[in-house]
């Protein structure tokens, strides 16, 4: 029943937001709701970890460790974003950038968006997963184009069209899977539980073609280069709490869909083919993103390209799957989700105060906003992968997996791109954070909600860097077993 509660909370909140006309009250109710959701999600995962038995409800919902992991990631980031939204939306209204009515609309869409994202990992039917992912695009397009100015509408248009085309290719992949499942295994259904039972009989050739379409299709939505060109636009134009959700969670939700098909394909063609695809897309993303990070002028685009880079790291990690890379890659999914949301929240404050996205015009953030300034400075190191932060651990684990599986070239080039991206990031962010503030600007008061959101994420980022809790370890391990088909 906990599962139903997880779906019900965002739904109820989205309806509530249509009736309450006070942005602060609405924001606080929203944050409380997501606090509850995170609690329920935690409780669910705890119960789930007792026996790790997949849970199936009426044939519609199916939750195994992979779903539980992605739900947990979504819940954590959504909770942080809902806290951050209180202060963010309040400030937007005070500065007359949006109206009260639009603020209510924001919370409505926020909840619908979270609802669709939480729904994806729970669904049993792979076609419904496809539809839920398409719905995440359609709902979040409104959040990308929220300000109704030229740039944001252009970004939203690109986002809808490119992601819809991508996902249409994924649909073709699904149809190929359905074809081989009905023709060779005799299963006329797209339900995960049924398909997996006959997955041994799938035709290897068709499965390979289908996987290619799945990778290109869902990969577009997951921000793999070279299909990534919508990503920096959409992620930089969205409101900052939403940018955090888009970069932190939505990309991973499509990765989840890819993983589902990889697991299905394992039974007939093994993991090697998927691993190869992961490595190709991963290296491509790393290379392209590293170049754009170096020359970037726009703060939020910088972070968006960094998401492409981190999707590349995750892919390379999955490519090293057999040697513990899958474990490290999933750990990186969690770490990147939290750290990227953290950085987007800091960047949101910076963009609001400086009234520009251009990094050359930002300076002395530490003097202007001590809390967010220090946070963005530390966050840059966390995102770049320095100890003692959690991303360091997952990146090192991925590199070790690469060396263990003797893929020296891939691991070495990943290390090189990481170094380039780290240098670019720290160079840009330190220029923003350090130095003296512009003379005509005064020290800003920082909203309490921002501080809470950043602290909440910061505790995780630092804590996971120091020690991985036993239960989290078990969850990730069980996911790794699932992905590798052991």
């Amino acid at each position, binding site marked *: 029943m906990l599962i139903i509660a997880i779906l019900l909370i965002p739904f109820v909140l989205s309806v509530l937001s249509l009736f309450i006309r006070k942005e602060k009250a609405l924001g606080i109710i929203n944050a409380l709701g997501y606090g509850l959701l995170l609690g329920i999600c935690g409780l669910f995962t705890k119960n789930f970890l007792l026996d790790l038995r997949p849970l199936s409800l009426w044939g519609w919902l199916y939750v195994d460790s992979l779903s539980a992991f992605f739900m947990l990631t979504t819940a954590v980031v959504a909770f942080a974003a809902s806290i951050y939204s209180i202060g963010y939306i309040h400030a937007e209204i005070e500065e007359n950038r949006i109206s009260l009515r639009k603020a209510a609309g924001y919370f409505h869409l926020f909840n619908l968006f979270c609802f669709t994202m939480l729904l994806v990992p729970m669904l049993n039917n792979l076609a419904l997963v496809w539809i839920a992912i398409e719905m995440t695009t*359609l709902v979040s397009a409104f959040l990308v184009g929220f300000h109704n100015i030229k740039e944001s*509408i252009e970004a939203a*248009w690109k986002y809808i069209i490119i992601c819809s085309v991508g996902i249409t290719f994924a649909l073709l992949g699904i149809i190929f899977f359905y074809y081989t499942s*009905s023709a060779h295994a005799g299963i006329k259904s797209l339900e995960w539980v049924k398909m997996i039972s006959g997955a041994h009989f799938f035709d290897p050739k068709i499965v390979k073609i289908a996987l290619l379409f799945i990778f290109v299709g869902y990969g577009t939505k997951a921000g793999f280069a070279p299909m990534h060109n919508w990503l920096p636009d959409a992620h930089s134009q969205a409101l900052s709490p939403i940018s955090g959700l888009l970069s932190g969670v939505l990309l991973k939700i499509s990765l989840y869909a890819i993983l589902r098909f990889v697991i299905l394909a394992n039974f007939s063609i093994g993991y090697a083919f998927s691993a190869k695809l992961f490595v190709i897309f991963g290296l491509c993303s790393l290379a392209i993103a590293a170049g754009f990070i170096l020359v970037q002028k726009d703060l939020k685009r910088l972070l968006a390209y960094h998401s492409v880079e981190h999707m590349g790291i995750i892919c390379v990690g999955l490519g090293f799957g057999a040697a513990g890379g899958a474990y490290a890659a999933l750990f990186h999914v969690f770490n990147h989700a939290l750290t990227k949301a953290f950085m987007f929240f800091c960047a949101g404050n910076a963009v609001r105060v400086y009234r520009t996205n251009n990094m050359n015009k930002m300076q002395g953030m530490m003097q202007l906003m001590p809390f967010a300034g220090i946070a963005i400075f530390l966050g840059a190191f966390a995102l770049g992968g320095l100890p003692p932060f959690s991303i360091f651990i997952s990146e090192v684990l991925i590199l070790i997996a690469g060396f263990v599986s003797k893929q020296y070239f891939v691991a070495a080039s990943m290390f090189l791109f990481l170094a380039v991206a780290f240098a670019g990031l720290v160079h840009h962010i330190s220029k923003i954070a350090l130095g003296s503030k512009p003379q005509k600007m005064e020290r800003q008061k920082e909203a309490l909600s921002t501080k809470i959101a950043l602290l909440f994420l910061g505790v995780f980022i630092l804590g996971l860097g120091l020690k991985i809790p036993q239960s989290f370890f078990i969850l990730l391990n069980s996911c790794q077993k699932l992905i590798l088909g052991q």
Partner: protein
Amino acid sequence: MVLMFLLSGFLITAFLMTIAKRITALIRTFRLQSLFLFFYTLSMAIAQKHIEFFIVSVLILILKVGIIPYILTRIVRRINVEENLELLVNPQLSLLIALLLTYFSYLFTYHIMPFGMSLESAVFVVSIAIICIGFFIMVSRMKALSQVLGLLTMENGIFLAATAITGGMPFFVEIAFFFDIFVFVIIIEVFVYKVNHLFTHIDISKMKSLKG
């Protein structure tokens, strides 16, 4: 016999789309293609005597022949869009590319997919060709609406592929797809109005503020 007629109908409408110079012509051809899709599913329904197929074909008639082209023409009427499509590739070359794409689909089907020489594989060739041509329309036409039509054409092709090689997806999955297409078109309508309002045109090649 009927099937062959319908298949050539699909291909001809797809080719017509690549040489259409005006948006209204594009919408009309899309409607015609959807009508062929309706007849195709109807013939499947009659052959298999399955109530679910009848429902699906009626839904195609309502949604793809009726509502979606209606919404698209309404958009064209409301925003007074210049009808010219501003082709990046001229019609003759477009047609040539479409032919090449069809040949490519033929090669793909007979050399890669293990269907053998059957009727299904003929349908499959056509559906892959339509998907490719839809994609080609998306990347080579510079109007927002033509991108939408390209995408809808791709979806027609995918629908055809699904019925050709699998004998139709599970019933409620198809219903869900229809729902998805419907929502997609509604949301696209909202955004086309917004684009038109802000840019005073719906020309994608002139959207250039986001770069790098």
